């Protein structure tokens, strides 16, 4: 169930960033550093993870991604290169073995047959809050309006005085920050290592595609669907078969509804 929360955040992406997994990893490591090394509370770790990942993301956007707009293959290659660099740097700094972050809210309670850890509940609540916050951000704030203006009609937005490059960087930084949050949240449950980003990457891609790349609501539902079905099926058959089935279903969805399940109609 904790995985659910993770996937929700991972799904918020607007550009093809193969280093997204690594941003998650960075968030996780930040959490590790802050809690274990510096001995501060988890509450500090969360915003710190957001900030660090956002900063890295912004740097990526400025240095690399904005130079490559309109060239998806190059963008993928470049971000792949970045992911390798980030992985190896983490490897060099922290070593390859997994590190552990203590669960900030230990203990669990029972709901009938099911044992539910407190931390998982916290995660879900927190993620929901973040989601609500993001939606509010997009709908109510000036920043959010600018982002939506740009998505709908970039040149028009620029004519209206919106600095689209600046907004791009901010958006990307925000998305990266969210990834970092995800990493920090995942850290206590999954352990931290340089190469942990990989599986999250694929899942994020798939969920954003299933949900519809332009729609937050869709992505949320998408990730819920993906996470839930994997868990459900995993319970019924076994993990591998579950993954295969989910994968097949996703391909079918992509094939027949490339805009995702909740896309807005585009001209």
């Amino acid at each position, binding site marked *: 169930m904790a995985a659910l929360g993770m996937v929700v955040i991972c799904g918020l992406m607007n550009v093809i960033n193969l280093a997204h997994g690594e941003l998650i990893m960075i968030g996780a490591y930040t959490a590790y550093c802050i809690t274990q090394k510096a001995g501060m509370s988890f509450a500090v770790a969360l915003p710190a993870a957001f900030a660090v990942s956002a900063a890295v993301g912004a740097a990526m956007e400025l240095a690399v991604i904005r130079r490559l707009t309109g060239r998806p293959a190059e963008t993928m290659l470049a971000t*792949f290169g970045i992911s390798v660099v980030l992985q190896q740097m983490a490897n060099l700094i922290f070593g390859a073995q997994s590190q552990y972050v203590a669960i900030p809210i230990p203990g669990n309670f029972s709901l009938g047959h099911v044992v539910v850890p407190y931390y998982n509940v916290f995660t879900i609540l927190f993620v929901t809050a973040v989601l609500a916050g993001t939606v509010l951000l997009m709908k109510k704030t000036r920043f959010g309006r600018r982002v939506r203006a740009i998505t709908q009609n970039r040149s028009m937005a620029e004519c209206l005085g919106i600095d689209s490059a600046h907004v791009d960087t901010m958006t990307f930084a925000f998305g990266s920050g969210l990834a970092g949050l995800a990493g920090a949240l995942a850290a206590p449950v999954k352990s931290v290592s340089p190469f942990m980003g990989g599986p999250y990457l694929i899942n994020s891609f798939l969920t954003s595609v299933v949900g519809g790349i332009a729609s937050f609501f869709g992505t949320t539902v998408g990730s819920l669907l993906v996470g839930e079905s994997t868990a459900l099926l995993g319970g019924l058959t076994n993990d591998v078969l579950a993954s295969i089935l989910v994968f097949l279903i996703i391909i079918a969805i992509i094939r027949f509804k*490339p805009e995702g399940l909740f896309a807005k109609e585009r001209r």
Partner: protein
Amino acid sequence: MTKHWSLRVNRVLDLAIFLILGFFPLAGLSFYTQLIEKYMVFLIFAWSLDILWGYTGLMDLGHAVLFGMGGYTMALCLSAQGGIPEFMERCGVTVPPFWLKAIMNPFAAVLVGILLPALLAWLLGRFLFTSRVGGVFFSVITLALAQVFTLFLQSQQKYMGGFNGIGGLPGLSFFGHSLSLMESYYFVFCVVFLVFAFCRVLMASRFGLVLRSVRENETRLEFLGYDQAKFKTAVFAVSGALAGLAGVLYAPVNGMIAPNDVGIEFSTTAIVWLAIGGRGNLTGAALGSLLINVLGNALSEQFGAFWQLLLGIVIIVVVFFMPDGVVGALRKAVKEHE
């Protein structure tokens, strides 16, 4: 005649590569000869990716799956030569499963190893390319496919050897006669040469012309009367067959095969070869794969993780400054020299 000269760069490199590969074993370094033999097998894999990505523009992030299907087929066959393979016996298998019996004959295994991935590619192509599935989706789906494939192999302890894969495979042998290193090496060399010739002829034909136009402007092509889905599926199938062939050779040449060899990592490694070497001309793929393999082998002994880091940086640099790879940069340099 600038086009003439820059094509000359390709021909010179091709010749150089084949000469070096051809004469290498005569240097007598048997350990390295074995290594180069493996790298030659990788050339076939690189070319299979090139015709799909370099020429047609379809970035397959899970190409190693097709390679792995060929490899595992051959590995299963080879390990079943003396009856039930050891790793299966250890898990309590007493009767060979029907599919194992089908591929016990090496010739059958080779055929299956080549045709099965081709079939998968063909089916996938028919399913994906007939909708407006864009390039990025294709990449994401192939990436997911690679992950599923790896998971599958890792979970099949009984039949596929699980995490450790299948090891202890004998080298190439024909009609009972086991090939020596030299014989094996030159056999692979001949296959590599034939594959190269095939790919060149195929890409120089009108088929290649249509494929390049798929990469350039897919919609325009449709309006000229070509069904782009059929062409993409066809090249995907051919690419799958070649990747499978590479896998079939890999199993005996490498002596073992494991899920890690045939998953996302190997797929992305091949992408890196082509990105750095240059794509859309078989030379770049060959150069990239050989260069990176040789350098990687030499440097990672000494520097370990730094090599990977360096590679990551090189990729980013190449994307910005040498979008057509090393071969592309050389051609440009020659052109400007004119």
